């Protein structure tokens, strides 16, 4: 199943571990039974987990998750308002596998720090148009 061309979904949630499951349900609703569904869930879970672990001090902030289909490409965005990449770079073993995993599962992946603060991750997945 492919989401309709141009279909755009945005959600803003509290960056808490308890919301990770809800984010995966968003992927289920958006993508349905697509060959990329599991990979998108893994990537979003890791990206939002990074925001939860490193993005906010003290206490949880918010994270914005965006899903958008452009032709045969699924664009996924995760934006937090936290303390930026410095925290993410201080990752410990195991947690430090997150970014390599995201790179392995996506066509392209880019992390940036917007001028207003926080961290933005943009990832792209190639969808199978014949599915």
């Amino acid at each position, binding site marked *: 199943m492919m989401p309709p061309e141009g279909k755009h979904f945005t*959600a803003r949630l509290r960056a808490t*571990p*308890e919301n*990770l*499951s*809800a984010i*995966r*349900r*968003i992927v289920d*609703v958006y993508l349905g039974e697509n060959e990329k569904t*599991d*990979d998108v*869930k*893994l990537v979003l*879970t*890791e990206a939002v*987990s990074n925001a*939860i*672990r490193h993005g906010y001090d003290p206490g949880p902030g918010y994270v914005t998750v965006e899903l958008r289909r452009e032709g045969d490409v699924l664009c996924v965005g995760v934006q937090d308002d936290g303390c930026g990449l410095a925290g993410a770079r201080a990752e410990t*073993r*195991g*947690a430090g*596998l*997150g970014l390599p*995993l995201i790179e*392995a*599962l996506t066509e392209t992946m880019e992390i940036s720090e917007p001028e207003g603060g926080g961290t933005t991750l943009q990832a792209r997945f190639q969808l199978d148009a014949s599915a």
Partner: protein
Amino acid sequence: MVEHFDVIVARVEVDTPLPSVAVIVLKGEHDLASVPQVREAIGSQLEAGRNVVVDVTETLFVDLAIVKTLMDAREEAQGLGRRVVIEFGTTPVVRRLLELTALLDQFPHEDSRDKAIREAAEQEGDA
């Protein structure tokens, strides 16, 4: 507009089929939210002197936080002279992450409960 999405509850069940072996079954979806629950379940069995089988055959999702918890548990077990064995099934997303992280290369693993228990009990000699 506020939408609500159901969550899939993470459950941890513990069984002790042998005096020296505990089976910890992870059901539902496991991620950063259930790390304390999983860590405590494995740690308490290791501290009680048991080897541990972690059964992920019915697990619907695991993330890297759970993989790291299992890696930490393996180290703790080695320090105590115990072992942690993975019993894995065919849930595609779970298998995919275990393969991508090469977790199965680092753990003894079996595809059935009996074999996993035997593997875990091997060094105790009471299988």
